[in-house]
């Protein structure tokens, strides 16, 4: 049978993911992410690891190109794909928050929200019944209130330092986020034994950390 394909979100999450797999006893090369390769065959574990942009992890997994994926909950919420989300890996912890300049306008009229997560933002405000104009940006969201492009931003906040340094404050915490292990719905059934073993091994590391802390 083919190697099990695991899609990891390029960047910090992938680094943590490699560490986690190593802690769980999987034989991944420690420095594998130092190279510029995007695809790694780990023959000893029968893995194929691919590095993709975070937002693409759910897509690779939903389409079944990857059997498993490691990605932030923020991306999962934005992409809203049909997947099994089986494990909270408890790293990459942050939150979704609304933020803006300290003197928040009270009026709900004509509120403009800048975000990298337009779909989640739309659903969030719809569920609250608030009409807003959503402006999709691709980075440096903090600039939006400073330049007057928008009055509010919806973004991920980890320590809050970037907000503070730009003179912004959190209006509202929406929900906690962290890295998740997701599984293709068909692979979960057709390759149950292999996948269950991985879930169990990773779960042990994650939960084990908990009891030590």
């Amino acid at each position, binding site marked *: *049978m083919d190697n099990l394909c695991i899609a990891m979100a390029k960047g910090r999450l992938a680094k943590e993911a490699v560490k986690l797999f190593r802690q769980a006893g999987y034989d991944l090369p420690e420095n594998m992410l130092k190279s510029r390769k995007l695809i790694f065959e780990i023959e000893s574990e029968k893995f194929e690891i691919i590095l993709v942009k975070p937002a693409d992890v759910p897509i690779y997994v939903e*389409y*079944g190109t990857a059997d498993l994926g490691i990605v932030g909950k923020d991306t999962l919420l934005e992409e809203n794909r049909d997947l099994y989300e089986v*494990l909270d890996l408890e790293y990459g912890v942050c939150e979704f928050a609304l933020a803006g300049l300290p003197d928040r306008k009270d009026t709900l009229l004509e509120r403009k929200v800048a975000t990298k997560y337009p779909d989640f933002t739309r659903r969030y405000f719809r569920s609250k019944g608030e009409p807003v104009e959503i402006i999709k940006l691709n980075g440096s969201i903090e600039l939006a209130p400073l330049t007057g492009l928008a009055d509010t931003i919806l973004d991920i906040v980890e320590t809050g330092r970037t907000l503070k340094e730009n003179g912004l404050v959190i209006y509202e915490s929406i929900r906690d986020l962290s890295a998740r292990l997701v599984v293709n719905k068909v692979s979960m*059934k*057709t*390759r149950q034994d292999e996948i269950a073993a991985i*879930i169990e091994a990773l779960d042990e590391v994650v939960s084990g950390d908990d009891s030590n802390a």
Partner: protein
Amino acid sequence: MNAFVEGVRDILPAELRKRRGIYQTIREVFEANAYREVITPTLESLELYAGIEGLVDKSEMFKVVDDRGQILVLRPDLTMPIARLAASRFQDSPRPLKFSYLSSAFQSKNSQSLSLKEKTQAGVELIGSASLESDLEMIMLLIKTLKKVGVEAPLIDIGHADLINEIFADLKIAENEKVELRKLLAAKNKIGVKNYLRKVELSEDAEDVLLRLPSLFGSPKKVIEVMKEMPLSQETKEVLKTLSGLFSRLKELELLDYITFDPMLISRHGYYTGLIFKGYARGYSNLLASGGRYDNLTEKFGVEEPAVGFALEIENLLDYLNRTENFAEDQEKRFLLSYQSDSDMQLAFELAEDLRRAGFVAEVYNGANKEYLDFQQVNFEICLEADKLELKQNGGASAVIERNQKEALEYLILNKIEEWE
């Protein structure tokens, strides 16, 4: 001009040949099992589909307005039209009704893989029978069909719509909160369930059950055994008993190796009322088929009767077969005939007709060059000359055959080809 529409595509000869092979196999299996094919209209009334919870969202249907202002839809699914047929034109016909179909379904947004707006679906519907045997028949027929088209190791994942409902029946949770929990269980989201349990107050037994459900699926025997020990309601146990019955029958038929059981299997189609199943292939991560029991669907037409059916996702099936190269494709030989003298035209056409009768593809064309021969995938070229004919393998050997008597020509040509092979 931009004449392209996103999400739809042309099907070209090479793919169409493969499709025809699959279509033929599927139709043969369905017809041989007494499921007669029907073709329902591409256009249906919006009312047929409106208000059926969980079938297709209204916003995902293609709407058309006719000249009287009536709103029509391009059929988003093929089960509803057959339910309509059963409840109208076949209302007084003896039961069970057995129908099959192979047509396109249209959806403007398709969250499933291979996001096509036009999908081909082939399926069967068995209407008017609620027996375990009819459930069994569906699963057997699905396995048979998948194997016949070239899926070596099909896998049928079985669930039951009532299981999740009955497990919920016992829980003292508000209706709107159940929706969330249902979603979490369907997504096997253990983390979500854990967080959810912090918000609601449930008995320890119930919490234990809910936490174990996300990882409880797989071998029918094992899952049933685990669930038997769980503190579940009487109704849930009844459902499990029914499923156990189904599994033991499948075992008798030596089909249990193809079966997995997922108590929390939930279909996108909310209309299923009993058995739910999905068809996969080992090593392929997309859905090949889905089906189940929908005992309430004909209620809409004022007739309540049990029904069960399944649909194959043809595009996914093609994708799978392409990857595994499991096509049972017949390699037909293709001939191109040409002549030099006008007086040979008749002979060329007669010879071409002889070859067609013998099961080959033959065309008569005098202007063919190498590019044309390749494009048309011609295997053999026959050039009629004054007193002989030249037989050429496209890009290979050639031979000269004397033209003495017409009758013998076809024989001589085929002999030569056989010799080459």
